[in-house]
């Protein structure tokens, strides 16, 4: 991809990711957050976290399905935006909703499954954000880094559980997001299986898996 195309792509993603926050701030400023501003802000930030998290999870499946790779350069950006929104979402809960009621929050984390898995999702994102720099990728080595960053799928599942457990009956959006996540995981799973089968087939066909010594060679 050309440099200008890359700049354009990143600008679009930056704008798209900042827009929900900007809207929230504008509405706050216009006193238009509705009757329950705290709940509204919590929900907007939660929704945005989930959307960006899922967006970050589409990049690899897109490569696997269509063999395109220009989108892979967005991994870090989307991942860090998802993490930032999750932190904002959590901060609103701690500061504005619960107002530093630590015993109450600890009890919620222990007793309310939707809070427990939300906390799990956020916690899982911390090491991923911390190891998102190029230096950390180098330090960990590509393989370890990739293994560590598979945790993002666990975080995705935890986030979906968080949403479906807090949503009241009658809402359809948790199912929608769950379907998307299942599809994304499905693509990866299918690809793994296909690759494993592919390898075995190659072996079965007698293709040389290790170089054979040719008789008479030195």
């Amino acid at each position, binding site marked *: 991809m050309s440099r200008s195309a890359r700049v354009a792509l990143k600008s679009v993603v930056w704008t798209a990711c900042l827009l929900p926050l900007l*809207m929230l701030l*504008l*509405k706050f400023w*216009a*006193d*238009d957050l*509705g*009757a*329950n501003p*705290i*709940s509204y802000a919590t929900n907007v930030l939660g929704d945005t976290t989930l959307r960006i998290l899922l967006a970050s999870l589409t990049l690899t499946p897109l490569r696997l399905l269509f063999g395109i790779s220009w989108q892979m350069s967005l991994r870090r950006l989307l991942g860090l935006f998802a993490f930032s929104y999750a932190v904002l979402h959590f901060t609103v809960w701690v500061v*504005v909703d*619960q*107002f530093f009621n630590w015993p*109450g929050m600890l*009890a*919620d984390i222990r*007793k*309310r*499954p*939707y809070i427990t898995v939300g906390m799990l999702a956020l916690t899982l994102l911390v090491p991923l954000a911390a190891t998102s720099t190029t230096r950390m990728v180098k330090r960990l080595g590509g393989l370890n880094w990739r293994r560590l960053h598979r945790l993002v799928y666990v975080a995705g599942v935890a986030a979906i559980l968080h949403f479906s*457990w*807090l949503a*009241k*009956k*009658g*809402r*359809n959006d948790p*199912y*929608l997001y769950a379907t998307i996540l299942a599809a994304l995981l499905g693509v990866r799973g299918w690809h793994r299986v296909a690759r494993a089968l592919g390898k075995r087939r190659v072996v079965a066909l007698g293709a040389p898996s290790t170089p054979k010594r040719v008789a008479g060679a030195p």
Partner: protein
Amino acid sequence: MLIKRRPDIASSEITARGLYLSRRAFIAGGAALTLGPSRATAAAETPPAEPLAAKPSPTFRVDDPPTKFESATTYNNFYEFGVDKADPSIYGARLRPRPWTVRVEGLCARPKTYDLDELLRLVPLEERVYRLRCVEGWSMVIPWIGFPLASLIKRVEPTGKARFVEFTTLYDPAQFPGQKKNLISFSSLEWPYAEGLRLDEALHPLTLLTFGMYGHVLPHQNGAPVRVVVPWKYGFKSAKSIVRIRFVTERPRTTWEKAAPNEYGFYSNVNPTVDHPRWSQATERRIGDFRRRPTLMFNGYADQVASLYAGMDLRKDF
């Protein structure tokens, strides 16, 4: 059509509505500049409500200041219009609250179909200021207009076999878009909405058959044209847009009980010591407040209603 008497509205309500109007104009202006259509402008599409005269009740009023009219009319759970809190104010205009009849039937000596206007003239209307606690952990204070449901019940003379009262909300997907079934709304409640009370609960003086709020007829999003208000129970127990009231022997199965029996009990009395399985009920956020406040037993009406449940295990009969 309405009672021809000079509106006798408590001054606090006039202020609340006045404040609401000016604030809304301000927001609508600001929002138009920055954000295009907002929840505030959407709410403005609902036709303005007609005044409804009522005598303020000296006894049935809490001292807490009433919730802003704008909040009470834009932040609603009324799934018939949609699951989002803004949906009822956005789609409310589709409801046609007139002509309207309420069928009162079942185990009673004088079943009857009441026209709304007849109901409105049955007993003098009074204004009562009640707390409203939603099962989701927020609360409001609303000046309602109506009369005790008991006045209607006594007129139709329930028989000795009547032990429960079942309320049914209008079913009409043309007026209630939330009742439409389609591909994206597969997870839905069972319609029509059904609620119920024990007969003694329904006869309790606090239980109000309600036609208005804030000095006006009920806005569509608040359950027009007639609903019940049962202030010591979570909000969903107070059925809206009622078309049928029926006396039965067996405990009716309510819509929310059918949807999630372990979460929404038949009684659903406000109770800070019995948590909803998914969230705590110990505290609530009064709409307009910043900090949460402790939730009161029976929503603060324990003096008046606790005796109804003497000897019952409220953890089991939640």
